[in-house]
C-alpha cells in the first residue's frame, strides 16, 4: 500500500529535475553547458586578446606623436627578421631558456629521485614542504637577493675571495644562474610525481635481470620519467623565455621580454610583432610536449 501511495503521490517535477532531464543523455548539451563559461572566457577573452596583439603588429606608429596608424604593413616583421640585433636577442633568449631547462633537469632529478624512492615517509613530506615553501617567497625579492649576492661587494665574492676566485658578476651568466634557481622547484615536483608512479617492482625486476644501477637508470627510469621532465620543462622554458625583470636586475643583456617592454610605450606595433616570436615558440613547444605525453604529468 505504501509503495503504491508513494508512486501515486510522486513529488512534482521541480525545475531542477526538469532541467536535469533535458540534459540527461544529451552529451553535447551537457558538455556545452559546462564548457560555455570557460570557453567564452578563454577563447573570446584570451585568444581574442592575442588576436588583438597580432593585429596590432601589422600597424605602424608616428615618430612624433606616437599615434598608431592602422594601415596594414609588414614593416615590423621585416624589421625583426632582417635586422640582426633582433635575431641575436631571440637566439640569446632561447639559448638561455634551453640551458636553464637542462640545468634544472639535472639538478632536479637526484632530489626528486631521492624523494620518490629513497626517503622515508616523514622525510618525503618534509622535503615536499621544504621545496614548496620557497615558492611563496616573492620572485622580486629572490631576484634582488641574487643581485646583491652577485654584486662586487656581495656574498659570492666575499665567499670566493679567500679562494682567489670571484663570482660571475652581472651578465648573461648571472641570468642563467638566477633563472635556474628560480624555476628549480617547478622542475622538481613534476619529476618527483612522475618517478613516484614508477612501481618499485619494475626497478627490482630490472635489478634481478642483472642491470647495474646505471643501466636501470638509463633504460628503465629515464624513459618512464621523461614525460614528467618534459612537463617540468614547459615551465622552466616559458618562464625564462618571457622574463624581462631578471635580465634587467642582474645583467645588461637584452632578452625578448626587454625589447617588448621597451617598445610597448612608443612603438606598440613593433613590440607586438616581436611578442609573436615567443608565442610561436611556445605553441610549438607545447605541441611537442603534448606529443611526449607531458600533459598527463602537469
Amino acid at each position, binding site marked *: 500500500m505504501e509503495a503504491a501511495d508513494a508512486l501515486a503521490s510522486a513529488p512534482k517535477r521541480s525545475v531542477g529535475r526538469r532541467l536535469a532531464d533535458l540534459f540527461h543523455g544529451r552529451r553535447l548539451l551537457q558538455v556545452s553547458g*559546462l564548457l560555455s*563559461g570557460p570557453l567564452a572566457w578563454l577563447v573570446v577573452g584570451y585568444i581574442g586578446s592575442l588576436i588583438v*596583439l597580432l593585429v596590432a603588429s601589422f600597424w605602424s606608429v608616428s615618430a612624433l606623436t606616437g599615434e598608431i596608424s592602422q594601415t596594414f604593413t609588414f614593416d615590423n616583421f621585416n624589421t625583426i627578421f632582417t635586422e640582426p640585433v633582433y635575431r641575436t636577442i631571440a637566439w640569446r633568449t632561447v639559448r638561455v631558456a634551453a640551458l636553464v631547462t637542462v640545468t634544472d633537469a639535472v639538478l632536479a632529478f637526484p632530489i626528486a629521485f631521492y624523494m620518490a624512492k629513497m626517503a622515508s615517509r616523514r622525510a618525503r613530506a618534509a622535503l615536499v614542504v621544504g621545496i614548496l615553501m620557497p615558492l611563496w617567497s616573492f620572485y622580486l*625579492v629572490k631576484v*634582488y637577493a641574487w643581485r646583491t649576492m652577485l654584486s662586487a*661587494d656581495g656574498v659570492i665574492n666575499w665567499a670566493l675571495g679567500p679562494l682567489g676566485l670571484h663570482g660571475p658578476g652581472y651578465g648573461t651568466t648571472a641570468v642563467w644562474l638566477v633563472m635556474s634557481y628560480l624555476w628549480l622547484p617547478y622542475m622538481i615536483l*613534476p619529476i618527483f610525481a612522475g618517478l613516484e608512479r614508477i612501481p618499485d617492482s619494475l626497478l627490482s625486476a630490472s635489478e634481478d635481470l642483472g642491470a647495474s644501477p646505471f643501466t636501470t637508470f638509463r633504460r628503465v627510469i629515464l624513459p618512464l620519467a621523461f614525460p614528467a621532465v618534459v612537463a617540468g620543462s614547459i615551465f622552466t622554458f616559458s618562464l625564462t623565455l*618571457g622574463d624581462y625583470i631578471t635580465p634587467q636586475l642582474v645583467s645588461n643583456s637584452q632578452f625578448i621580454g626587454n625589447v617588448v617592454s621597451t617598445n610597448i610605450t612608443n612603438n606598440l606595433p613593433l613590440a607586438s610583432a616581436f*611578442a609573436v616570436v615567443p608565442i610561436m615558440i*611556445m605553441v610549438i613547444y607545447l605541441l611537442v610536449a603534448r606529443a611526449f605525453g607531458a600533459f598527463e604529468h602537469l
Partner: protein
Amino acid sequence: MRFSRRSKILLRVAVAIALAFIYIPLIVIAIYAFNSSNLLEWPPPSLTLHWFPEAIKDAGARDAFVTSLKVGAAATAIALLLGTLASLAVAKHRFFGRETVSFLVILPIALPGIVTGVALSDTFTQVLGIDLSLFTVVVAHATFCIVVVYNNVVARLRRSSASIDEASADLGADPWQTFRYVTLPQMSTALVAGALLAFALSFDEIIVTTFTIGAGEQTLPIWIFSNLFRPNQIPIVNVVAVIVVLLSIIPVYLAHRLTREEEGVAGGRGAGAVATEATAMP
C-alpha cells in the same frame, strides 16, 4: 630495489647541494631583514629587530597586502568556478576537441607573462575602452589561474571511478544531487589544493599585473617593485618577504595534510598527491 652505499651517499650529497642552493638566497634575505644598515652591504654590520615594527607600520605595505589578498581571493574564486566547469566536462565526457581544451587552458600560463599582460591591457584599453583597475587585474589573474584548478580537479576526477556516479543515479539522484553529494566531496581536496595554488600564483604575480593595474593601485609585488631601490625601504621589503614566507607555512602544510588523507584511497601516493597537485603551476 637495493641501493649500493655509494649511490646512497652520492644521492644524499646531491640532495644536500640542491637544498643548499634553494635555501642560501632565502637565508640571505632573512639576514638582510635584520640588517641594521639599509645599504645592503655584506657582511651586515650588525643585526636588529628594528625593521619588523617599521614594516608593520608602513601604510603602503599594509594597503598593498590587503589589495593582494582581495585580488587573490577574487581571481581564485573565478578560477575555481571556470576550472571546475572545464574539468568536469573533460573528465566526465568524451567529445571532440577534448584535447584542445587542455591546450587552451594551459596557454595563458605557458605564454610569457609580458605577452599575456600586453595583450590583455591592449584589449581593455583600446578595444573595450575600459580603464585599467583592480577589476582588470582580477580578470587577468583568473585567466592564468584556471589551469591550476583545472589540472588538480581533472587529475582527481580521473582517479575516481565512473561507477560511483552510476550507483548514485541508480539510487535515484538527479545530476545536481550526484554532483552535490558524490562528485563535490570527491573533488574537495583537489579544489582546496587548487585554490591554494591559484592564490599563491596571483599573490606573487608581477609582470601581468604591471600591465593590467590602474595607476593608483598597488598589489604587494608592485609595492615591492616600487620600493626595491629605495634605501630606506629595502629592509622593510625583506621583512615583508620573510613574514610572507613564514605565514605560508600554514597553507602549504594544510594542503599537504588534506591530500595526505587520501593516502588510503589513492594507494600510498602520499606526498606525491601534494606534488601532483602542486606541480600544476608555474
